[in-house]
């Protein structure tokens, strides 16, 4: 097979959501129900608002989970909203999330989908 072409995805955005350890699974499940195709979770440490919560700060884990989800720009707002709700980000100490533009990405794309998209062009 000649390796002279790779399919590069555009119109992609990256949602990054940082929550307390142990909470990522539920949020990823909600995001997937809302149309996200996959998620990467890794561990981290971090604090900020924890120190300003006083005694209640002990209820906030310093250990965090960072969820990264690549979403199409059509879906990104919807997934963003669903994740915001699932993570209860309006409560202080629950974490934060942000969307960054992505220039390009590549992964496995089913060949039949590729063919169809090429036909449309």
């Amino acid at each position, binding site marked *: 097979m000649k390796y002279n072409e790779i399919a590069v995805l555009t119109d992609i955005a990256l949602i990054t959501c940082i929550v307390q350890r142990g909470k990522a699974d539920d949020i990823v499940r909600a995001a997937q129900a809302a149309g996200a195709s996959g998620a990467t979770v890794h561990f981290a440490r971090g604090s900020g608002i924890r120190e300003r919560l006083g005694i209640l700060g002990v209820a906030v884990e310093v250990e965090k989970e960072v969820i990264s989800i690549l979403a199409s720009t059509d879906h990104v707002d919807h997934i963003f*909203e669903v994740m915001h709700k699932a993570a209860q980000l309006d*409560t202080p100490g629950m974490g934060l999330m942000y969307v960054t533009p992505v220039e390009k990405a590549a992964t496995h794309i089913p060949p039949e989908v590729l063919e169809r998209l090429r036909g449309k062009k």
Partner: protein
Amino acid sequence: MPDTSDKSEAVDGAHVSNSGPLKLKKIRFSAFQHELNVQQRPVSYNGVISAIAPDKKRRRKRVKLRGIDMFRLLRPYVQVRFSDQVKAVLPLAIYLNLFQILILRQNISEPWVVMLGLIAIIAGLMMFMEGLKHGLMPFSESIGAILPAKSPLPVVLLVAMLLGIVVTLAEPAIGALQIAGAMIQPESAPYLYEILNHWSGMLVFVIGLGVGLAAVAGTLRFLYGLSLKPLICLALLPALFLSWQMAGDPYLAEMIGLAWDCGAVTTGPVTVPLVLALGIGIAGAAGKGGSPLSGFGIVTLASLFPVTGVLLLANHVAAVTSPDEIIAAAQATTRLVSEISWYEQSPMQEILAGLRAILPLVGFLLLVLYYLIGEKLRNASVTIYGISLCLIGMIVFSLGLTYGLTNLGSQSGSLVPATFSHIDSVTDSPLYLFGIGITVTALFAWFLGFGATLAEPALNTLGMTVENLTQGAFRKSTLIYAVSIGVGLGLTAGVLKVVFAWPLAWMLIPGYLLAAVLTLFSSEEFVNIAWDSAGVTTGPVTVPLVLAMGVGLGDAVSAMEGFGILAMASIGPILSVLATGLWIKWSVYRKRANEDIQTSLAAGETS
């Protein structure tokens, strides 16, 4: 999400509103979409950061919380920690209840009191452990990391030793000893009664001294990389010798069970992490940390050294008083007990005991921090929160111990003999033929030990360490089952010992001698693992339960004393894990040997 038919209807309605008699409600599509999507209102972060910026005194503003925020933050926090303790307590309680109702056909007396007591145990343990994490652990860690750099080695070792003593006071299971002591009849076991009632402060101090020495020895082991084998043999030698000597004296023999049980009591949820944190900190500061085995050993020594201490104390008590004097004094006091001062009654007694347990530890750690390290509390409010949580937890736990676990344990213990012999409190006992009854009792003890150990979370952690250490040769599940079966067998042996009044010394001494022999033949890793697994199994729930059960059982069969069951439950896993380790080593060796033969045969064929 509303389906798309709404959308088309709304759009259609805009077109046909004037034509028919049908009155249609007009909805603007943009308004509908507005409802569907959450509105995202852009807020400039520049504006936010200037609004919450620190004021002139450089103090950051506190966050205001709504009620729902408090709930959302606290619910998972409490839930996780509560369910951890529920998992440790509930299976045991259910097992004991079912056994009592189905096999013994007895109802639980005072079920509500027992239940409230169990809830108190769960809540108390939860608060205590959380408080320990926030209030005391940071102290111990920073002392361990900083002290060796600031003070010479003798001072560091002195601090380790003192920490061992005060930490023993704070161990929740130590209170169970006093409660068990109150159930002893002075006539049947005078020395035991005397030590547990009038010398109890001294007893705890001696145990603490043992733990302190163990902390010193363990730290030196970290620093110089000593092998655990000679240390174990050195610690065992005086303990076994004293036990052997005391077994000859009928009055002193009753102390052996208590002494060996004390070793199991010390390795609880306070001692192990605090002393370990200090030891590892010291080893790390000396550049000797990081060895996967460095965490082991202290636990083992902390369960062996106190035994010798208690045995010596028993000899001392025997030298000062005689059994007749003790019995006479006990009878004199029972006539006078009509008036108990307010601070010796149930709720006050537990509160005072809680204060007495925690405050010395806190005071000691603070003194070391201020005078030796010269550092101030970094996060005072969290530390105060942790310490007060520790205190409340300890008090609630002691209350639960009195009303819940000890109650339940002594009930089961005193009723179990109904399976094979006549007991006044149980009508139509014996319930079964003698042989069947004894078998039921043995099985009861075995499953109690097996189940309680299997559920122990600390064992799971140990199992993972072991699997990594042995490169997968010693599987996690192998260790867990080896330890659980060992504890089950040990508990069975202990219960049978109480029922048949076998002399404990003749079970302990051969057991530990066998363990010593196996230790000499095993590799260093397995020795560390095996001896530590005994300490891991005796947590704050198992210890009071088994102690109370033993004393209740001893009462019911009118044995002299019910101690020694815990000691048997400690030696059981040591033997089973050492044996499993040797077996694994042997099977690996045999496999290698087979391979060697095959390769040499193959080599012979080709040449």
